[in-house]
């Protein structure tokens, strides 16, 4: 019964294969769009697999020869999906019985690929990434009307704050009064919303997006380039007329057109009466480049997250530290290097000021010493100008007040330790205290000194009254209740951030590639022109049909583009206008 069934189906199936192949072939020419390609390829697949069901080894041979015949007609190499099919035929011959299972096993990754390269899925993933990021930081807008009628917009950050201790979330999202009826701290902590950017959900979606990128590049973009590169002649004028742009030139030669197209940057293939030309292969490669660049950035980012060291330190001027003591690993790939033994000495920390008294720039003069105590590098760093040595980068990020050096009644100098009093953003305030009189009494009184920066010190007496302002280095003494004080120097400490990041070169390569490929894919306007021409009086296969339509020599031109659709016809018309007209026509009627 199986054989009977087979004999009935075998012939149509061969036909079907041919038909489908033709349709696929044609399809690739006409519609190089993302999703439809994968859709189209899967039915074709199932058909080829059906052909190779165990009963029909003989038919496989005829099928194969048919295919070869067909590819003789069309010079291009077979498309990707078909290669897979042929491979499977070979595999079948070897393993005989278990072909079905093997086919399934081999098919599975392809199905996964097809699913992953699905565009709506990718779009959904991108939406998910965006939504997760937006969730963390959502603005809550409340309009409050003031008495004057002025409408003030009050914006508050009311969504999930990041990186707080669990207690914070217990309070903010209590179980007895859930947000939106269901949202409690359990949700926040289980889903990792307290640290979204490193939560498994976020990273998982990013990874999924990465695999989608790869799958899309493999299953859709690369075949598109192959299709574009193929010699892709069309042998029927009807097919050409179906193109988005088509025109019939009554008296013309296809060779002249070839020359003109070559002159304007097309790659031209001529075979007998048919011509195929294309331009804008860069535009085909560029989206692949964009995806690869994204993958490169993702890979670099992963390496950064798993293989870097970070640390920050506040060092008073004149002291030193060892790099390795400050840096702490961020992931399991972090491994220290030789340069970690370097000792850093802060020679000097100083600030530049504007005339208005505001800080213009911070500078730290650093010296690097190796294990033998030899100075290997010396550089003055500032914000926007870090120091790089052996993979370690040292940034100037912060500053602090370390100590105040004073002379009391010409004695000293004494170093008074300075403490930060109120740190509110950039408005820093530091203070110190010089006790006067009996140190052992219960309430010690003395002189208070306050400073916002290293430039000027404000002094207050024992009663807390303002006395005066002195600049360090001014040598100008100040008398407070009989005590003469000279402020010798203000010693600052430099806040430094240190890091090693092996991912940076990869990420930067990705950045460069992304910028380049984005620009290229925009600039390659007139994308692919699939321009097929036919000369009427030649002996082609479909010549009869056309003879009925036209008389005399004629060139049918068809073209298409996938971008700049409005400009393409203009360009084609401009090109075709250059085509010389053949006066002498030798066509038999």
């Amino acid at each position: 019964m199986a054989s009977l069934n087979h004999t009935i189906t075998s012939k149509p199936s061969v036909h079907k294969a041919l038909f489908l192949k033709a349709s696929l072939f044609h399809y690739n020419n006409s519609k190089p769009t993302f999703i439809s390609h994968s859709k189209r390829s899967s039915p074709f697949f199932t058909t080829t697999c059906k052909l190779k069901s165990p009963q029909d080894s003989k038919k496989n041979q005829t099928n194969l020869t048919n295919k070869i015949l067909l590819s003789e007609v069309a010079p291009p190499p077979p498309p990707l999906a078909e290669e897979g099919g042929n491979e499977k035929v070979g595999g079948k011959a070897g393993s005989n019985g278990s072909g079905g299972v093997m086919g399934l096993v081999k098919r599975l990754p392809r199905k996964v690929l097809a699913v992953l390269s699905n565009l709506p899925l990718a779009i959904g993933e991108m939406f998910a990434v965006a939504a997760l990021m937006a969730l963390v930081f959502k603005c809550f807008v409340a309009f409050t009307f003031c008495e004057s009628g002025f409408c003030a917009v009050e914006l508050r950050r009311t969504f999930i704050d990041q990186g707080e201790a669990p207690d914070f979330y217990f309070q903010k999202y209590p179980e007895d009064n859930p947000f939106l009826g269901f949202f409690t701290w359990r949700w926040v902590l289980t889903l990792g919303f307290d640290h979204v950017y490193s939560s498994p959900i976020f990273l998982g979606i990013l990874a999924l997006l990465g695999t989608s990128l790869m799958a899309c590049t493999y299953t859709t973009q690369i075949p598109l380039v192959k299709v574009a590169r193929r010699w892709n002649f069309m042998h029927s004028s009807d097919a050409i007329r179906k193109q988005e742009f088509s025109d019939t030139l009554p008296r013309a030669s296809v060779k002249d057109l070839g020359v003109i197209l070559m002159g304007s940057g097309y790659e031209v293939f001529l075979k007998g009466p048919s011509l195929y030309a294309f331009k804008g292969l860069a535009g085909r490669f560029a989206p692949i480049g964009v995806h690869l660049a994204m993958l490169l950035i993702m890979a670099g980012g992963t390496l950064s997250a798993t293989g870097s060291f970070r640390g920050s330190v506040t060092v008073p001027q004149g002291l030193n530290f060892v790099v390795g003591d400050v840096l702490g690993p961020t992931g399991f790939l972090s491994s220290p290097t030789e340069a970690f033994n370097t000792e850093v000495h802060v020679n000097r920390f100083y600030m530049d000021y504007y005339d208005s008294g505001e800080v213009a720039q911070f500078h730290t003069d650093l010296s690097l010493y190796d294990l033998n105590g030899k100075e290997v590098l010396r550089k003055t760093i500032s914000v926007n100008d870090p120091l790089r040595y052996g993979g370690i980068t040292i940034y100037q990020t912060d500053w602090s007040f370390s100590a105040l050096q004073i002379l009391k009644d010409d004695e000293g100098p004494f170093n008074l330790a300075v403490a930060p009093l109120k740190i509110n953003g950039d408005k820093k305030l530091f203070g110190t205290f010089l006790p006067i009189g009996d140190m052992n009494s219960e309430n010690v009184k003395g002189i208070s000194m306050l400073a916002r920066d290293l430039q000027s010190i404000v002094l207050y007496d024992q009663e807390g009254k303002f006395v005066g302002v002195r600049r360090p280095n001014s040598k100008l003494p100040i008398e407070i209740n009989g005590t003469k004080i000279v402020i010798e120097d203000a010693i600052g400490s430099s806040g430094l951030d240190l890091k090693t990041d092996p991912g940076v070169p990869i990420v930067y390569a990705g950045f460069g590639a992304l910028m380049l490929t984005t620009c290229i894919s925009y600039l390659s306007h007139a994308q692919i022109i699939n321009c097929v021409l036919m000369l009427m009086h030649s002996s082609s296969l479909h010549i009869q049909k056309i003879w009925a339509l036209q008389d005399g020599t004629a060139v049918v031109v068809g073209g298409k583009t996938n971008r700049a659709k409005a400009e393409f016809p203009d360009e084609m018309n401009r090109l075709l206008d250059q085509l010389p007209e053949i006066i002498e026509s030798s066509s038999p009627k």
Partner: protein
Amino acid sequence: MIFSTLEHILTHISFSVVSIVITIHLITLLVDEIVGLYDSSEKGMMTTFFCITGLLITRWIYLGYLPLSNLYESLIFLSWSFSIIHMVPYFKKYKNYLNLNAITTPSAIFTQGFATSGLLTEMHQSEILVPALQSHWLMMHVSMMVLGYAALLCGSLLSLALLVITFRKFFSKINNLVNESFSLGEIQYVREKNNLLPNTFFLSSRNYYRFQLIQQLDLWSYRIISLGFIFLTIGILSGAVWANEAWGSYWNWDPKETWAFITWTLFSIYLHTRTNKNIESVNSAIVASMGFFIIWICYFGVNLLGIGLHSYGSFTLTSN
């Protein structure tokens, strides 16, 4: 001193010229189309463009750096970007460049009006550059970002207009307004069509015109958004490189960075929906118009909060 006077004069000229241009638009919209007036509105946009350019250059000269360090300056730059988007198709002599008129002119006046309004008076004075901003990347990063915002805002506004026209039943009133303002550019074209076709086909020609308009809007929003997307990409990447120089890491998940990334993701979704022919232009227009709000959150909302590393452009609203 002379510089600030000059700046003052230029601001006022450009602002009043844009107001006049908008008035002209309204007159042509509500009363009748007068060709002479229409031409003068074109000249007005030219004047505005040169005024804002002059304003930026003046500020540049006396500050010593490209004026992009706070919200006021970036708003002026945004306004300038709108006028440049307005100018570009004009120079390229596209037949249908007038299409953009209805979008760019009001955008320019609104941004400039906001920049020069009382809300931001304290910012008019040139501020000193904080240490982190003293870099050559400032020019590259901020100008690219603002150009990108301007282009993306224009594109998404065009998409919004497309949505309004498509769903005309739902908002017929607004639609009339938008339709009419766009018809300024198309009116000539439609008239030609009307002359060609017999009067009996008026209804179908009206439909045809609507179809044409939707096609035009779709095409232009796609073009402008893909241009803006490039600017945004370059802006974000140069910002990342700068952050690696100044803050110690190329990506800090700072609110502004996060929102810029959300914007970027959204518009890459838009560009992907455009590659698929099965997805209708209306759907991609919905994505693009979501982008309109996202950009405002990114550009403005984050500044309003004044948190994170990008707090240079922040300001506090005073209720009195």
